């Protein structure tokens, strides 16, 4: 019997496979297909202090082995979440992690303080990397001082597991990772989407209402994997890897590169069962290679 457990700071995951924020709604949608209690963890849709309508339609464009999105953090705000959604989902048997967003440090703090009160939310993921909002979002995650500031302030008010989600749209992601580690982040997750663009050549218009959007899917996997490997070699806190994971081999690659756990995003749109298939695939891999525990995979790339 192989051991699939992994640990992200204080957070015990029954297996290393979580679903990524913005790709698994508020968990309920996935329960239409299966029991989400099988997942290692579930990242809820990005949440802000107040209601956000998100960006105008069209919000997505297909690209080669990937897609662009410009959702722009549509959500009803943290209070609505706490009052209306949380009670319905809190007893799902998997760690539910709130993806915290804000246009200002104060907003990040306000959302965090509210979420801190929720018994069944064992961790937050601080999203300083959303490329689809005009204010805040990615702007916090692409410079060390701002990444440090928001992490420091949120750390002050949050006592459970604090994951900071990094943007790949930077020259050196290890600097940002070290900066947030220095301010008390318990873990970093990477990568968020790459800023991209699509054009309809016949109509000569951008395909997204916002012109640019976030690229995700297998197309970005080689870059995401490189970043996870770099960050793993630069920080001591656990790394959560993501970006184009479609199957167990992809997930294992991220773990070999240094990820303690992974998140599956866009793949869910193709098939919501993929996270479960990946859990099975990792188990089968460990058995076949006679490796006792999933946690042994982390960083064990042979050079």
């Amino acid at each position, binding site marked *: 019997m192989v051991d699939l457990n992994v640990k992200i700071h204080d957070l015990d995951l029954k297996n290393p496979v979580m679903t990524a924020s913005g790709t*698994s709604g508020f968990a309920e949608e996935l329960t239409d297909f299966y029991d989400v209690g099988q997942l290692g963890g579930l990242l809820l849709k990005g949440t802000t202090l107040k209601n956000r309508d998100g960006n105008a339609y*069209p919000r997505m464009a297909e690209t080669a082995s990937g897609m662009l999105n410009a959702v722009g953090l549509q959500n009803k705000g943290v209070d609505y979440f706490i009052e209306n959604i949380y009670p319905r989902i809190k007893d799902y048997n998997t760690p539910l992690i709130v993806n915290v967003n804000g246009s200002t440090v104060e907003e990040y703090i306000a959302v965090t303080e509210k979420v801190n009160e929720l018994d069944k939310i064992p961790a937050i993921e601080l999203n300083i990397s959303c490329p689809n909002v005009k204010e805040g979002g990615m702007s916090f995650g692409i410079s060390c001082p701002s990444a440090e500031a928001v992490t420091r302030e949120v750390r002050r008010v949050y006592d459970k597991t604090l994951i900071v989600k990094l943007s790949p749209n930077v020259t050196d992601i290890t600097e940002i990772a070290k900066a947030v580690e220095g301010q008390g982040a318990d873990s970093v997750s990477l990568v968020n989407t790459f800023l991209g663009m699509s054009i309809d050549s016949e109509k000569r218009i951008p395909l997204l209402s916002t012109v640019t959007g976030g690229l995700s899917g297998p197309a970005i996997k080689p870059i995401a994997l490189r970043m996870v490997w770099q960050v793993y070699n630069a920080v001591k806190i656990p790394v959560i890897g993501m970006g184009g994971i479609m199957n167990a081999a992809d997930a294992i690659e991220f773990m070999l590169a240094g990820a303690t756990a992974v998140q599956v995003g866009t793949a869910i749109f193709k098939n919501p069962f993929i996270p479960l298939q990946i859990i099975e695939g990792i188990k089968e891999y460990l058995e076949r290679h006679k490796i006792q525990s999933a946690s042994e995979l982390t960083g064990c790339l042979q050079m």
Partner: protein
Amino acid sequence: MSRKFVEEFKVVKNIALNSSNFLIKLLSKKALPQIAPGQFVNVEVENSKEIFLRRPFSVFEVDYTQNTMSLIVKILGRGSKKLTEIEEGDTINIVYPLGKSFSYPEKEDKVLLIGGGSGVAPMLFLAKETGLVKENVDIILGARSKEEHIDVSDYAKYGNLHYTTEDGSLGEKGFVTHHSIFEQINNYSKIYACGPDAMMKAVAKIAQTEGIFCEVSLENLMACGFGVCLCCIEPTQKGNLCICTEGPVFNIKELKW
């Protein structure tokens, strides 16, 4: 929320209805769940380097005794083209059943069903299911020309069939909303429409002006089809709603048209 599935269906029929529309009939290994007109499926397009995401198609027919479901696929771009090349015996992977259906009319209703382009499938499915006597159902189908219309004579038993074509080669000339039926539009208590945006908006405008109940089925671009990506939104009176879970069918009152 309702139970949804990801399943490999076997293609038992794939026939060209005309040069751009294909009927694809799919066999399930297990008993099909209830599927109502307006609901749709999200289809994986295999063997295509260019297609990454699934493609949504309305359900056209369901046979619960045979466990079959049919789609009408109109060739629009690369994904729909590839799908129509599928061979009998092949399998296709489908996420279903998705979305909310049209509301069913009441016994005393007189209804007008309007379908254009790829919107024909859900309209014909609905025609079959209204539960009304033929006299109370009018169906207008619009297309550019006679060649683009498919043969729907089987549906004459469910309602009175009318056609429009832009070139006048079948039925009345012009868009669906130019059809003479619209001169007595107040005869109808309910209008249902599915087709190109411009067509639905024209229909909605008339229904709105005349104060007639009207449901339309939208075809926004989708990434997931089951409510997790928030890409398929439509601005409504209640804010941006996902058409894949809160639609694709909307009462025009809910929309901001």
